[in-house]
């Protein structure tokens, strides 16, 4: 399962695309993905917040994830 990274999320992991480990199993929801990221990279827990986008839409924590989805980590936005 691949996730796209931007802004500070890219700096935390050190790459613009991260392959989420398949063991013990792929995260099945947005919430599970966020938990995996915070466990593997504790710096995610220090952010003001971070969201997940699934197929170019903000996704709430109960949204299911599939291997075919385009998944992105959205740290606090700061355009303008």
């Amino acid at each position: 399962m691949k996730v796209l990274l931007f802004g500070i999320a890219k700096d935390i992991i050190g790459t613009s695309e991260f392959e989420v480990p398949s063991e013990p199993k792929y995260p099945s929801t947005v919430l599970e993905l966020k938990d995996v990221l915070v466990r593997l990279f504790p710096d995610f827990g220090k952010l003001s917040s971070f969201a997940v986008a699934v197929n170019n839409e903000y996704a709430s924590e109960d949204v299911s994830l599939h291997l075919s989805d385009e998944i992105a980590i959205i740290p606090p936005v700061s355009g303008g």
Partner: protein
Amino acid sequence: MYIEIVDEIDTAQVYKDLSDAGSGGICVFVGAVREFTNNEAVVSLEFETYKSMALKEMEKIAAEAIEKWQLNKVVMRHAVGLKKVEEPVVVVGASSAHRDACFEACRFLIDTLKERVPIWKKEVFSNKSVWVSAHP
């Protein structure tokens, strides 16, 4: 509507984009690079985006504004890459029959862009760089 992520903002273009026979009012907001943040001199700003989603979010915001204020035309254009002090980084605007609608819509366009559109800004100082709003 004109929704774009660009390398350079051309502020002269926006009047042409918004000008319209049915519009008695055109309102435009331009955001630019400010020299100081909390008394520290900014060397430059670096903007990054998740382009496909950013365009989609901007389209949604523009569509909401058009419906709410009966706008004739809308522009939302944001720059990416390295921007120096005084350079424009974002331009939004709206045209409508009367001025109240385009003033209100213009404020909504920029405020909502800042809240929702996946664009990130890094402030580069002489001795460090900081992703804006990343930490509490």
